[in-house]
């Protein structure tokens, strides 16, 4: 996994957390950091803009929210989305 992707995502999510930045790590559950579903929508938007990728939509909003458990999870998902795009590309 490219650590720079994870770093970039970490920096984006940092904008939305409602806990002290020093308490927030790549494996901190986003829910515990005060990230709700609306903030998740904003984070997806920011990641798509910053990394020039499209994060595939998941019909079930609860399921989409669940796939955004931690920064590390999101980074893995972004890496997968990129690989899928390359294969398709």
């Amino acid at each position, binding site marked *: 996994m490219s650590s720079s992707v994870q770093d970039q995502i970490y920096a984006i999510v940092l*904008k*939305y957390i409602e806990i002290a930045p020093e308490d927030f790590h790549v494996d901190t559950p986003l829910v515990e950091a005060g990230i709700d579903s*609306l903030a998740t*929508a*904003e984070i*997806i*938007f920011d990641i*798509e803009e910053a990394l020039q990728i499209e994060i595939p939509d998941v019909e079930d909003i609860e399921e989409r929210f669940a796939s955004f458990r931690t920064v590390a999870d999101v980074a893995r998902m972004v890496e997968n989305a990129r690989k899928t795009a390359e294969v398709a590309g």
Partner: protein
Amino acid sequence: MTRVVVTGYGALSALGQDVESYAQNLLAGGCGIGPITAFDSSPLRTQIAAEVPGYNPSAHFSQRDQSQIDRFSQFAILASRQAAVHAGLSNDGQMTERACVVYGTGVGGQITQDQNYKRLYADGKYNTHPFTVAKLMPSAAASHIGMDLGITGPSYGVTSACSSAAHAIANGWMLIRSGLADVALVGGSEALISLGAVAAWESMRVLALDTCRPFSAKRGGLVLGEGAGTLVLESLEHAQARGAPILAELAGVGMTSDAGNLIRPSLHGPVRAMQQAIAGSGLQAADVAYVNAHGTGTLQNDPVETQAIHEVFGEHAARLVVSSSKSMIGHTLGAAGALEAIATVVALQSQTAPPTMNYLAADPKCDLDYAPNAARPMQIGAALSNSFAFGGLNVALCFRHADLMTPLQKG
């Protein structure tokens, strides 16, 4: 009948980011019109606007808040915070269900709309920022003010183009008089210095290319401005009970519509609005000393407004001072009625009529005393603030000095 007084105000405009600089620069004849900095205006003919100078959202709002709050709501929040502080109101119990917010805007989140339309139509990105809807809705300012100050009474947005804020003020006045609220945060905000909005205004051929010269010969039109103004209105009883400073009385309002032309100004609608405001105040026309005019600086508005003032005031028109703050802050559209109502209260407090700046020479069709290029110290017992909107929607607000005329009595 419940009397309604002004106990505070706040403003962001081309004359500064706080109400002190606004009042000082109004009386000193400052002009906030300058080159457009918000976007690259080089493809347009119009190169000037009246922007809030040096506005830095990060000085007031977190990154997260900035992504959720359009510039027009940011201005509204900041002007309202100032107004609440000015009125000595805090949100620890004083701003409750007995307080309300009525807030005007011409278009709402124009910049948000511009940015997201660009994504769709120009950049080929078929999504928008998740908060696009919540940022651009015209009622967002009212919601944000309420959330910021903890106001839980009736709150809503009001829209009537260039009269929006004046209608909002009149509405707050009505809510207090009806007994539905004791305190009303009222006013308006506009932030539309964007390619989309300036291009649209330019197409109407009403924008000045040099500067705004209301009532003057060689005037070239209006100059778009941005900003927000908030007044705290309060029942006299509530204000006196908490020992609040009473800055002026909003004694009467006049609201009419032309049912005529969407764009062309009429005589009769504005005349009736001014007459209603004066009569509703229990005053005679001769009691009014100063009129803060709508005074856009367009070829069409200024002579019609002049004629309307003649019709309302008769011989007394020659003794009035009439000035247009738009020569200094531009036309702030949905905020204009509030910024100019504040200018009218400042005139009453300072006993000085703010000037009409950039005045070159008399236009034979505009033959009143416009306090050209210099403020006019004078006795002002009562004053009008005029707002006349596209669509023929007219408001006149009549303010009285807090103690110069009949003393304010309880009840």
